[in-house]
């Protein structure tokens, strides 16, 4: 359930990471009403998501955008869905399933612009815990044509065209930025990751060696026991 690899918690080098730095002074407390408002709006716009989610009985998800310092607790309790916001390095309340990945990928997933399995295959997305619950959530969200513009656009219809334009401009700017960050990220991290891989390999080898020694020990113990038993028998036979 828990991540045994502290290094993997290293956030990906994305524009969101910098956005996260800038948002650091904003406590999670202030984001809670925003998250709750977004959820309420989604319930209104896409009821089909929540009716599909209702099959989950009392399931809590931890959703972590790895390049932000915030995380989301999404819970389904007796057919109702709730959301809360926390901070990444805090002690989390109990959860059954965890999803983590760069914020931009999580948003693309929400809008159905990317396939969840594809993100998983390419290792951009991590899931842990109750896999069936995670897939239920993915299927439910994917059943609606979710649009962030519609969620955030609010109820003022005449503002929507302008909002749409602005949003698509921000979107494409962000995509360029993301590609640039990816390039820089690779060039900086390559030597370090190589080194880490070597260490990992060494650790694996040691683990294998330990396992072999364990097996050997079990074998030796068993043969000792056998020898002792046959000695006993022999002594018993003498009487």
């Amino acid at each position, binding site marked *: 359930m828990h991540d045994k690899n502290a290094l993997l918690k290293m956030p990906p080098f994305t524009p969101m990471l910098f956005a996260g730095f800038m948002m650091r002074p904003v406590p999670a407390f202030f984001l809670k009403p925003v998250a709750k408002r977004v959820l309420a709006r989604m319930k209104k716009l896409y009821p089909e998501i929540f009716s599909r989610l209702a099959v989950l009985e009392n399931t809590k998800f931890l959703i972590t955008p790895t390049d932000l310092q915030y995380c989301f607790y999404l819970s389904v309790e007796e057919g109702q869905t709730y959301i809360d916001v926390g901070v990444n390095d805090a002690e989390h309340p109990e959860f059954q399933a965890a999803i983590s990945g760069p914020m931009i990928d999580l948003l693309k997933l929400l809008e159905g612009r990317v396939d969840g*399995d594809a993100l998983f295959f390419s290792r951009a997305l*991590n899931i842990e815990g109750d896999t069936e619950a995670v897939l*239920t959530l993915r299927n439910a969200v994917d*059943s609606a044509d979710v649009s962030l513009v519609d969620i955030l656009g609010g109820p003022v219809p005449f503002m929507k065209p302008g909002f749409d334009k602005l949003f698509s401009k921000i979107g494409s700017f962000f995509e360029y930025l993301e590609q640039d960050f990816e390039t820089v990220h690779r060039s900086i991290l390559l030597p370090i990751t190589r080194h880490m891989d070597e260490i990992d390999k060494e650790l694996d080898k040691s683990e294998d060696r330990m396992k072999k020694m364990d097996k050997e020990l079990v074998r030796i113990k068993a043969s000792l026991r056998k020898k002792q038993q046959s000695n006993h028998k022999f002594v018993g036979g003498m009487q």
Partner: protein
Amino acid sequence: MELVCPAGTPASLRAALDAGADVVYVGFRDETNARNFPGLNFSPEELEESLEKAHDMGRQVYVAINTYPQAGNLEPWYRAVDTAARIGVDAVILADIGLLDYAKRQHPELRRHLSVQASASNPEAINFYHSAFDVQRVVLPRVLTVHEIAELIKEIDVETEVFAFGGMCVMAEGRCSLSSYATGKSPNMNGVCSPASHVEYEQRRGKLVSRLGEFTINSFPNEEAAGYPTLCKGRFVGHTGEPSYLFEEPTSLNVMMLLPELIQAGVKALKIEGRQRGKAYVYQVVSGYRKAIDAAMKGEPVPLMDMGNITEGTRSTAGAYEKNWR
């Protein structure tokens, strides 16, 4: 050549139609459907709406009722066939002989296709299904070469549908029980080789460790593309002592480059697998195949699309269609 595409939700169905599917196949949200996964599938009302949309666009919808009815509990399967007939779907995809018989007797006008789960891959079996239940089309298992398919088509009186893209299976479908040993759930009854209820992923020292039930199936080093924890695609320790893929690697099926040969062989329809995948997958694969089929039908070179990111292990193969061993 008809392009038959998957949809697990009405949104995926819309994506498939927008991307150029001729037919979308779906299933009900119950045990009659081999892809009966939580959060997925269609209620009768959703199917009715979706069918209307498809028909408005001049396209079709098939319904897969492709599990085997349980002894003493036939009702859900009969009901599914009755509902599909009432709604007016364009065909039902069935695997069970009893259910084929029921559909033929109760709804003779409802078009019947034989599911891949029936595992009919020789002329005798297919002609029997045709004469006994008036089956109009057979979905062939992914175990035949293009040449074998061409030969088969000469000896049967029904249309053939073949898998073009998606999950890669190395055995005769409908007959594999590998996952039953590990989880108690088989692809034949539960429609999946790695049931999510038994799947577990763990991050361990930069590796993604995947498990199915009690068994570790794979351990993907950092940066290596991952796959589902399917037993036939696991990395195991054989006599060499090093973990390796003993049966098959994590990979997806993709026969795009064989389209001209399949058309030549007389195949009637191409099937895309993946009702359990998201609508982004559906849109990407269907639009790629739409372009490829249109080009192949005009005799133009097939534009090969890069499907890398959506394939398992980010790799694909034409599998048995072009097998050269034997």
